[in-house]
Structures are given as structure tokens and as C-alpha cells.
């Protein structure tokens, strides 16, 4: 069992430790960047081919008009939610243990949203006309269709992405100032000078900063909920069996938080190892994150069961048939794997000893994420393969290598963005760690005084 952050850690030491992560990349860093670049290259290659030839090369067909692209899109959108959870919700709740880990979680939000946005593009049959979906006054005198959940989706993602970027940036300004003050002169210093906007930590700046940060956090919470509800609306607003479910929005939101938390555990472990952040990303934090994840896992499990139950007890025979098909048909292995990964694997998190076991939690978090990806796939594909119309059902459908390639590439893209982020933005929020340490030491002091005073 690791120790929590030492309360007597020197603030200068915090600066040093974190700033170290920004400089002098280790070989491992370059290896990861290279691998990520290769993966991304595969994805780009597949996309170029698909762009040239048409969507047919993705192996999509008449009933299966959406494939892995939409499933993976939801996956990435979902992953973005944990950043908001950690930085906004826990911020409002004054859970100080979020402080060392929220920065990279927020970055994850931003980058997974950017990745998700790519999938919207990749999915379009006429990518070169994507701007038709953008609402702006134009010479064509046309507007997008505001009734379409896809448009709500685009709008929600745009709002979410830009708000997240702003949130991430605003929250990093004091840290940029630290970087500015400590980094050797050169382009990086200039960059940080620019990014810090002349931040000096004056009382006026801090005062406004606090209110702004709180306000944006307040906005982000309903926004995050609305984003995934809207993604759920893409499905729930349609008439298709297996999608037309009232509980979809909360189900999606829970799934989103779930996959995001799992991803945070994964990244937590990786960053902790790569940047030697053992002092900040401590075991108690991991433990808290794991417990939170477990709680969300149970919420998700519940909503998952609700979904099955509401289908099962409805009189919608077709939806029921889709459910049976999920459990017994061609996609049954994946469906059962999803249930296993999503609802059974998290029970390992109940074992106290394992909650802080790095290898176990790493494996578990990966499994959870796999389960969440499968969940999205199992939402999208079986409904297409087994829709209302018996004649057009298609059980032979299997995504082509192009689809897999682009999905694969998206992980490379995400990793690449994250790697670049790690070297530019401090992945641990220095000033907030200081705050945390400060408040904790104050509390300890008070407690000691209280004890001495005796009542």
C-alpha cells in the first residue's frame, strides 16, 4: 500500500518534478510516438482509400449502413466524460484527491472528443461536403435540418469540445506561468509566456479565476450529460428495434462515465510509470478512482439490466427478437464478452488488495474499456443486422479491414495527441497539488491544535 502525497513536500519540489516531465523525452517516449504515428498512418491510409473508392470498401451494406465508425465514435465520446467528471463534478464537491489527476483526465476529454469528431467525418459518404451540416448563412440559402439528432450531436460535440478546450486552458494558465518562470529561454519559454497571458498570481487574477473556473465547471456538468444523452438520442429517437428505448440516455451517460474512468485508470498507471509521478499519483488516489469506477460500473450494470428488462417486458416483439439475437446470434460472443467485461470484471475492484495493485488494475481497466467498446458495437450492429424487416436482415456482415484499420488508427491518433500534450502541458496540475498539500497540512495542523486544546 503506497503512501499518499506527503504533506511536507516542498512546493519547489513539486515544480521540479512536474517540469521534469516536460523536458528531455526518454527513449520510451519516442518509441510510443513512433508506434502511435505508425498506427495513425494506417488509419490515414485506410481513410484515403475509402475516400477515393467510396464507403463500400468499408464493407458496409444496405441494412448495415453504420458500422464500427459510429460504434467507435460513441466510444470516444464516452471516454471524454470522465475528464469532466473529475474536474467539474469533483471540483464542485471539493474532492481534493482529484487534483493531481484531473489535468490529464481533462486532456483525455479533449483528445477523445477530437478523435470522436474524426469518426463523424470518416463516416460521411461525401466527406468533401461536410460543411453542409454546419449552420451558417450561405449562398445556397439552405440550412441543415435542425430536427436531426445528428445535428444536435454535431452541435453538442462542438460545444463540448470547445468548452473542454477552454476549461483545460483556463485551468492551466497558472501552470503555464510556472513553466514560463522555470524553463530555459528559448521557443518553449516564449510559448509559455504567450500561453500564460501574463499571469502573475495576483489576488485579482486568482479571485476571478476561481469564479470562472467554478462557473465553467457548473456549465460542463449538464453539458456532459446532455452530450451523451444526445448521442443516445441518435439511437433512441429513431424507430429501430433495440434502439427505441427510453432508458438509453442515462444508460449512455453511465457507460460514458464508466469507460472514461476506466481510461483514467489506464492513463494514470501509464503516466505514473513513464513520468515517475509516484509521489503525486499515489495509491490512495488510485484506490479512490477505482472505487468510483466500481460504483459507476454498478450503475451501468443496473441500467444495462434495465434496458434488457424493459425490452423483455415490453410488447415489442421485434425489439425482443433483437435482444435474443444479441444473446444467441452471430454476435453473441461479443455480447457476452461485453457483459462479462462490463459487469463481472469490475467485481475484482471489490478486493481491497487489488484496488492498489498496479498490474491487476491495469489489466482490469483495459478489460473494462474493451467491454465498453464492445457495448457500443453491440448497440449499433445487431440492430442493423436484425432490424424490423426480415427480408433485409444480414447476418453475414463483418466490418472490412478498412474499418478496422481506421479504428486502429484512431488509437494512434489519440496516443499521438496525448504524447504531444504531455510534453507541452504539465500533466499534473502543479498549483492545485500545492493547494491540496497546503490545505491538508492546514487541516492537520488544526487537528493537532484541536487535540492539544482538548475539550
Amino acid at each position: 500500500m503506497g503512501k499518499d502525497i506527503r504533506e511536507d513536500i516542498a512546493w519547489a519540489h513539486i515544480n521540479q518534478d512536474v517540469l521534469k516531465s516536460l523536458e528531455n523525452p526518454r527513449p520510451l517516449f519516442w518509441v510510443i510516438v513512433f508506434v502511435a504515428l505508425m498506427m495513425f498512418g494506417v488509419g490515414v491510409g485506410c481513410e484515403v482509400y475509402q475516400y477515393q473508392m467510396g464507403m463500400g470498401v468499408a464493407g458496409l451494406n444496405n441494412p448495415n449502413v453504420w458500422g464500427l465508425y459510429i460504434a467507435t465514435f460513441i466510444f470516444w465520446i464516452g471516454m471524454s466524460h470522465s475528464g469532466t467528471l473529475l474536474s467539474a463534478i469533483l471540483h464542485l464537491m471539493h474532492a481534493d484527491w482529484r487534483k493531481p489527476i484531473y489535468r490529464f483526465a481533462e486532456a483525455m476529454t479533449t483528445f477523445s472528443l477530437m478523435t470522436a469528431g474524426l469518426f463523424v467525418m470518416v463516416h460521411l459518404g461525401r466527406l468533401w461536403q461536410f460543411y453542409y451540416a454546419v449552420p451558417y448563412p450561405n449562398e445556397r440559402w439552405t440550412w441543415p435540418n435542425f430536427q436531426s439528432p445528428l445535428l444536435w450531436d454535431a452541435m453538442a460535440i462542438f460545444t463540448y469540445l470547445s468548452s473542454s478546450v477552454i476549461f483545460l486552458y483556463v485551468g492551466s494558465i497558472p501552470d503555464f506561468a510556472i513553466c514560463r518562470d522555470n524553463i530555459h529561454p528559448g521557443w518553449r519559454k516564449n510559448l509559455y509566456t504567450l500561453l500564460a497571458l501574463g499571469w502573475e498570481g495576483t489576488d485579482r487574477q486568482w479571485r476571478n479565476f476561481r469564479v470562472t473556473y467554478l462557473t465553467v465547471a457548473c456549465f460542463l456538468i449538464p453539458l456532459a450529460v446532455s452530450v451523451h444523452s444526445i448521442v443516445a438520442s441518435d439511437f433512441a429517437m429513431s424507430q429501430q428495434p433495440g434502439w427505441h428505448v427510453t432508458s438509453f440516455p442515462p444508460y449512455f451517460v453511465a457507460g460514458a462515465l464508466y469507460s472514461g474512468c476506466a481510461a483514467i485508470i489506464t492513463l494514470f498507471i501509464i503516466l505514473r510509470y513513464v513520468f515517475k509521478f509516484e509521489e503525486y499519483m499515489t495509491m490512495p488516489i488510485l484506490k479512490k478512482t477505482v472505487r468510483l469506477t466500481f460504483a459507476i460500473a454498478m450503475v451501468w450494470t443496473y441500467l444495462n439490466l434495465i434496458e434488457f428488462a424493459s425490452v423483455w417486458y415490453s410488447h415489442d416483439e421485434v425489439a425482443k427478437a433483437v435482444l435474443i439475437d444479441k444473446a444467441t446470434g452471430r454476435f453473441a460472443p461479443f455480447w457476452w464478452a461485453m457483459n462479462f467485461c462490463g459487469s463481472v470484471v469490475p467485481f475484482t475492484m471489490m478486493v481491497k488488495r487489488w484496488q492498489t495493485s498496479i498490474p491487476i488494475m491495469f489489466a482490469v481497466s483495459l478489460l473494462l474499456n474493451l467491454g465498453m467498446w464492445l457495448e457500443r458495437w453491440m448497440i449499433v450492429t445487431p440492430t442493423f443486422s436484425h432490424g424490423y424487416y426480415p427480408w433485409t436482415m444480414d447476418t453475414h456482415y463483418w466490418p472490412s479491414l478498412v474499418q478496422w484499420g481506421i479504428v486502429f488508427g484512431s488509437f494512434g491518433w489519440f496516443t499521438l495527441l496525448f504524447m504531444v500534450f504531455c510534453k507541452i502541458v504539465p500533466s499534473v496540475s502543479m498549483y492545485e497539488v500545492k493547494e491540496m498539500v497546503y490545505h491538508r497540512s492546514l487541516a492537520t495542523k488544526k487537528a493537532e491544535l484541536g487535540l492539544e486544546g482538548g475539550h
Partner: protein
Amino acid sequence: MSKRHMLALYNNFDEAEAVVRELRNSEIKGFNAADDLVVKSPIEHPEVEEFLGHKPVNVQWFTLIGALSGGLLAFFLIAGSQANFYSQMKGGKPIVPFPPDFVLTYEMFILGGVYITVLGFLICAGLPARRSPLYSAKVSTDQIGLLVRVDDNSAATLRSIFTKHQALEIQEEAGK
């Protein structure tokens, strides 16, 4: 009378607080604690506000205006464009349907709110700003800075107060 800036660095908030309280209580000519004193700190510390006395924050007004105008803009833009583009007739649906418009209004409400809040933050916090000449990188590390603007005459008084409270460092700069 020319003014000069002085920056004193302290190890912790307690010391800084003691200095500020003393400065606020003392009557130094050409120095008004409310206007001429700036506390620079590496972390946000709510108590700073307490010992500095109440100072208003106006960001929320930006928020209110931003959110409302975002929402209104969205609704009228969407409803207006739908009503203007009659050919987008959807079987079984009104030309201007409220439920979907509400979703977008909601999103734009938040978008406007966030954008204008941040704009308000920049305005209220005076960012981006030139850095003041008296700045120490130690402030962003672990020390508390007290930046004062004072008449040349009173500089010595202040310096003595700073020193009394074990200032780690005192920087001075001739004023304008």
C-alpha cells in the same frame, strides 16, 4: 511625488497575512492598502480575500448575459431559418418544431455561457497583461509576494514593516 513599487516575498501565508494586516491598519502616507497592495501567490487561497478585505467579482454577469444571449440567438436563428426554408417540409412534423429546437437552444445556452464567461474572466482579471516589472519566479513556486505601490518617502517605512515580518527578499523599483 514619485511612486515606487516594492515587492516583498514571504515564505507562507501567515507571515504575508500579518504584513497585510499591519499595512491595512497603519497609516502610511501615499499608500492605500485597498488600491496599492497586490498579493501574489502560487496558489489560490481564499483567506487572501479575507485579509485583503472584500473585492467584488463580476464574472457572473458575463455568464448570465452570455448564456441568455446564446440561448436566444440559437432559438431565433434556428426557428428563423426553418421558417425561411419552407422546402424542408417533414412529413408529420411542423415546420418549426419546438422539442428539437429546445435541444439546440440548450446547447447554445451553454456555449454562450462558457464563451462569455471566459471572456469576462479575461476582462475582469485584466488578461492578457504585461508583466509587472517587479516579479519573482519564486511566486509561482512557493513564496507569497506582496507588491506595493508607495510614495518614495514612505518606502523606508514599508521596508521596515516587511523586514519585521521576516521578508525573504525585498525588491524595489523606482516608480513612474
